[in-house]
């Protein structure tokens, strides 16, 4: 192949991977895993947590930002750069906190893509109806375990992606 051709092809490919600015509230197991994976993919990541010790989960090589503060406060969210964020993930321990943070991101800061982790299946469904994008880890977890038990197929690996084995 012509060297220029491959070069062009590479440039096009690189352009296709859009770099996202992501704000994550909650640096627990889910938040930290998500932050590490996104940062590893080259996205610009900022994680918010009230407890500075939570950031230890990110290890020493994490190249994103860390903000100590309450993810429900406008001032904290602004410090985390929410005004320029493309995506927002709410993964704190409480469903209501996540729902409020998500709606704050959507309604006040106009973030385009906002995803909320919810434990309670009913709440997840109600808010999804209201236009808040929710992922119910309870329903998904139960579904995966069900399928593994009955069909003998572990679909968890496919869902987990690169971070699944850690």
């Amino acid at each position: 192949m012509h060297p220029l051709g491959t070069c062009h092809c590479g440039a096009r490919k690189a352009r296709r991977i859009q770099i996202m600015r992501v704000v994550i509230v909650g640096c627990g197991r889910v938040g930290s895993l998500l932050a590490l994976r996104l940062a590893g993919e080259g996205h610009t990541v900022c994680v918010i947590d009230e407890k500075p010790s939570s950031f230890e989960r990110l290890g020493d090589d994490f190249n994103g930002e860390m903000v100590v503060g309450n993810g429900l406060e406008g001032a904290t969210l602004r410090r985390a750069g929410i005004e320029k964020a493309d995506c927002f993930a709410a993964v704190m321990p409480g469903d209501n906190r996540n729902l409020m943070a998500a709606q704050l991101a959507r309604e006040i800061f106009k973030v385009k893509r906002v995803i909320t982790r919810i434990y309670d299946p009913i709440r997840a469904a109600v808010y999804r109806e209201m236009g808040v994008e929710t992922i119910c880890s309870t329903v998904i977890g139960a579904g995966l375990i069900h399928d593994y038990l009955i069909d003998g197929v572990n679909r968890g690996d496919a869902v987990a992606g690169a971070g699944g084995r850690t």
Partner: protein
Amino acid sequence: MNQRTTPYVIVIGGGKVGYHLARHLLDRGYEVTLVEKDRVRAQWLSHQLGSCSIMVGDGDEMAFLATTGIERAGVVVGATGDDEDNLVACQLAKRKFSVPRTIARVNDPENVRLFKALGIDVPVSATELLMGLIEAELSGSDAVKGVAVKACGATLVDVALPELSSLVGRRVADVHLPGGDLVVCIVRDGLPVVPQADVVIQPGDELIIYSTTLDVESVRELVTN
């Protein structure tokens, strides 16, 4: 019979605010259900409030809310100390149970805007109310005693007019406040006077002004000039 004239009110959160609110509403003849998560606290509440129906449960759980008779509630009040819990309880009440009026206690004043945007009918910020009162006290001018009540993005300012105010001698109809702000009441010799168009403002009058555009200081400047 009672239910026709006064709405059934569900108060979520049996802390200090919820408890005193429930007691006040019961005294005024409302039918009230007070929802409290903590069993021990709920026991104490039922000792204090007697006739009031106290229910132990999560005010943000759909299944639990369905057992409170919420479908016939006229008002749901989110009165817990956590803004996110009040928000979710009120949103569920509104969206899933079609409760006509939801009132949420807002602890962080910055959330008032969000709550309004999300369809909560009345976000009440105690912090803002206190700030308004303290601000009025601090200004301490004799000519203009102001009591400002800030809530829901509007300010209620109580101003005692100085004798030299340009408003003295004018008819209410000729008082033009910016942004459609209104004189909602005149207090004359300690008695309220309905501010009809022909009422002439007199020295010593106290005006209660409802403003959505100005802060206390600006309203004060306006009427003192």
